[in-house]
C-alpha cells in the first residue's frame, strides 16, 4: 500500500520528466503525437486544478462562517455573488455578448478588479515619499536611475529636456538589460536544478501530506 502512496507517484514524475526531456530532441511523428496528446490532457487537468482552487477558497469561507470569525457575514456575500454569477452564466450559455453574464462581467468584475489594482497608485506615492531616501550610495544610484526613467518616459519630460528620452531608453537597453539578463540566467539555472530534483524524487513538496 505504501508503494502506491509514496513510490508510485515518484515513479510517475520520473517517467514523465525523462520522457519529455528526450521528446524535445526526437522529431519522429510518434514522439510529436505523444506531445500533442499529453498537452491536450494537461489542458483538461488544468481545468480541474482551477476547480480545486475555487473549492479551497469556498472551504476557507465556510470555515469562517462556521467559527463565526470576525467579518464572517461578508463570507455570505462571497457565496451569494458566486452563485448568482454561476446561475446567470449558465442561463446565458456561457456567452458574454449582450447577455446577463456580459453585464455582470463588464459592470462588476471589470470595475472591481481594475479599481483594486489602481488603488496601488496611491500607496506607491505614499511609500515613495516615506521610504525612498538617498541614505547610501546604492540607494542614490537607484533614485537617480528611477528619476531619469520617470522623467524621460513622459511627453512633458521629453519636451522640457530634449535628450532625456534617449537617456531613459539607454538605461533600459544597456545596464537594465545586463542586470535582468544575469537574473534571467540565474533563475533559469535554478529552474533546471529544481526540475531535475523533482524528476529524481529529491524534491517532493508537490506531493503534500506526511506519508
Amino acid at each position, binding site marked *: 500500500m505504501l508503494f502506491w502512496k509514496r513510490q508510485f507517484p515518484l515513479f510517475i514524475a520520473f517517467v514523465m520528466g525523462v520522457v519529455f526531456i528526450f*521528446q524535445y530532441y526526437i522529431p519522429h511523428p510518434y514522439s510529436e503525437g505523444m506531445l500533442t496528446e499529453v498537452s491536450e490532457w494537461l489542458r483538461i487537468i488544468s*481545468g*480541474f486544478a482551477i*476547480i480545486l482552487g475555487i473549492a479551497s477558497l469556498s472551504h476557507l469561507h465556510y470555515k469562517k462562517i462556521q467559527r463565526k470569525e470576525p467579518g464572517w457575514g*461578508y463570507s455570505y456575500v462571497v457565496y451569494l455573488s458566486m452563485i448568482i454569477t454561476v446561475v446567470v452564466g449558465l442561463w446565458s450559455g456561457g456567452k458574454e455578448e449582450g447577455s446577463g453574464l456580459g453585464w455582470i462581467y463588464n*459592470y462588476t468584475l471589470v470595475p472591481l478588479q481594475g479599481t483594486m489594482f489602481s488603488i496601488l497608485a496611491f500607496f506607491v506615492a505614499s511609500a515613495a515619499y516615506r521610504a525612498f531616501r538617498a541614505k547610501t550610495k546604492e540607494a542614490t544610484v537607484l533614485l537617480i536611475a528611477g528619476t531619469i526613467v520617470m522623467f524621460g518616459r513622459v511627453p512633458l519630460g521629453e519636451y522640457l529636456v530634449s535628450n532625456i528620452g534617449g537617456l531613459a531608453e539607454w538605461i533600459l537597453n544597456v545596464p537594465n538589460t545586463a542586470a535582468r539578463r544575469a537574473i534571467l*540566467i540565474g533563475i533559469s539555472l535554478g529552474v533546471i536544478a529544481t526540475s531535475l530534483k523533482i524528476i529524481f524524487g529529491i524534491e517532493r513538496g508537490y506531493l503534500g501530506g506526511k506519508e
Partner: protein
Amino acid sequence: MEGFLGAWVAVGLTLFIYSFLYKDNPFFKLAEHLYVGVSMGYTIVRIYYDTMVKSLYQPMVSEGKWWLVIAALLGLLMLTRFIPKITWLSRWSFAFVVGFGSGVVIPRIISSYILQQVQGTLLPLASVGEGGFRFGLAQLNTVLILVGVVTVLFYFFFSIEHRGAIRGAARVGIYFLMISFGAGFGYTVMARMSLLIGRIDDLLLYSSSDYGYATIVLSILIILGLLYWERSSRKAVKKVDMP
C-alpha cells in the same frame, strides 16, 4: 437602460473600493468580498464551457476521442485532495502534471534563456572593416552589457566568499542592479499611475448627464455614508469606554 444601470453599479463599486483610502470600512469590505465571489463564479462558468464542454465532452461524444476519459480521471483524482482517507490518490495527478512540466521546461529553458541569452551577450566588442578599427557607441554598449552580466552573476554567486577581485566584481554588479531596479521602480510608478488614470477616466465618463451624473451623486452618498459610519463607530466606542 442596461448601460445606465451598469454605470451606476460600476461607479458605486469603484467608489466603495476607493473609500479604503480614507480607512478600512464596510463599503470596502462589501466590494472586496463581492469581487472574490464574482471572480469565482465567472471562473466556474468559463471552466465549465471552455474545458468540460468544449475540450472534454464534445470531443469524446462527437469526435469519438474516448481516451480523454483518462485525462478526466486524472483531473477527478486531483479533487480527492479534499477527502482525507483517499487524499493520497491526488498525488498521482500532481506527479503527472509536475513531471510533465519539469521535463518539458528543461530543454526549452536551456535553449531560450541560457544559450540564446549568452549568445546575445557574446557579441563582437569592436569591429574591423574598410575604415579600419572601429569602437563606437554600439561597441561600448556591448562591452557594458558583457561587464554587467558577468559582474551581476558574480554578485549572485554565494558559494564562494566575496573577497579581493570577486568582491570588486560583485560591487560593480550591485550598481548595475541598482540602475535596473531604479528603472523598474520608474516603470512600476508608470504602470500604477496608468491604472489609476484608466479608472478616473471611466469615473469622469460616468459623471456626465448621459449617465445621470452617477459619479457625483454616488460620491456624495458614499461620503455621507462614511461620515455616518464614523459617527456610529465613535458612539459605540464611547459606550464601551464609559463605566
